[in-house]
């Protein structure tokens, strides 16, 4: 391995160790921090010959051990405040649907207006399932009447016409599959709610929400995520209204 490549390997190893040490730190801070350290190394390398391994090791030593840097970054993180809305959101997402769907919609607003969750968590919270556990019950009410129908005819003694016994929707599926679908349908919103709570307790902010995708308009900053959230909430209200009408 030539000297220059060896230097590159030493730097890659150092940055790899740094990323590992930063795993428990807010990812929003770490991305920028690692970029700063990379830049520092690039600048530092211009002060000695490209193949000077001793010079490089001295530079990395001066920058500090990955563990020390991770600790420093943690110390400098601003104290985190969790709003009441953030705390309530996972509960509203899972149980809010039982309050005539309204509670879930409030939870949806909390989810999309918060910087705590990433876009994927927001999408999970929205679409699995609309209405939370209430959506699950709705699924059981709604699906059997929309799925396939299987009927079998039985002719009893003295009967001229057979009696039709029909089963609907997922009840036509094999028992194992029925159980699996039932389990997934119930477990999925619970899993999503637990995940939202877990992200909340970790306290990672949403880089998608708070970096460059922010529109400043007449002194107020409006996050794109919040606007997308309003559109999603609007769509959900519409879907709820259509479902409610179909029930009648």
């Amino acid at each position: 391995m030539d000297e220059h490549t060896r230097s590159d390997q030493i730097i890659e190893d150092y940055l790899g160790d740094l990323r590992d040490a930063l795993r428990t730190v807010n990812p929003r801070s770490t991305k920028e921090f690692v970029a700063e350290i990379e830049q520092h190394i690039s600048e530092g390398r211009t002060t000695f010959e490209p193949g000077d391994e001793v010079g490089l090791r001295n530079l990395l030593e001066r920058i500090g051990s990955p563990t020390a840097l991770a600790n420093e970054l943690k110390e400098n993180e601003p104290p985190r405040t969790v709003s009441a809305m953030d705390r309530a959101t996972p509960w509203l997402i899972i149980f809010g649907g039982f309050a005539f769907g309204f509670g879930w919609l409030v939870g949806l607003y909390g989810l999309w207006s918060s910087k705590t969750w990433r876009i994927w968590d927001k999408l999970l919270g929205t679409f699995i399932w609309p209405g939370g556990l209430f959506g699950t019950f709705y699924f059981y009410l709604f699906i059997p009447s929309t799925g396939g129908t299987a009927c079998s005819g039985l002719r009893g003694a003295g009967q001229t016409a057979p009696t039709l016994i029909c089963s609907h929707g997922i009840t036509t599926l094999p028992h194992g599959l029925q159980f699996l679908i039932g389990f997934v349908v119930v477990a999925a919103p619970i899993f999503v709610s637990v995940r939202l709570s877990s992200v909340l307790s970790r306290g990672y902010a949403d880089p998608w929400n708070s970096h460059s995708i922010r529109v400043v308009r007449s002194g107020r900053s409006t996050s794109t995520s919040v606007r997308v959230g309003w559109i999603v909430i609007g769509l959900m209200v519409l879907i709820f209204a259509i479902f409610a009408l179909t029930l009648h």
Partner: protein
Amino acid sequence: MCNMVVGGTEKLLAQMRRGAIEYCVLALLQSEDHYGFEITRQLSEADGLVTSEGTVYPLLTRLRNDGLVDTYWQESNEGPPRRYYRITTNGKRALKLFIDQWARFRDSVDDILSRGK
């Protein structure tokens, strides 16, 4: 027990150092804008101020988040573009306040400590 006391003192010193460095950075930026590498090098040249150069970057981020400095990118002849740090009006105000208080604080502490000798 003794180790706990020493550990507490070390933690306090680390916090004091961290607090003081922020104003040292502001003081460096008051005369001219600097990029990160320059700032860390100047701080690490001062005895006992910085334990490792990399630890200055989280402080720079905090100063920026607090609105005491802002940043801009500038092309460099020696490599990739550099992020320059510039002191803001709030930063200048904070530095002035610190300088006023620091002299009084330092003199008072020195005075009390010298009595214990």
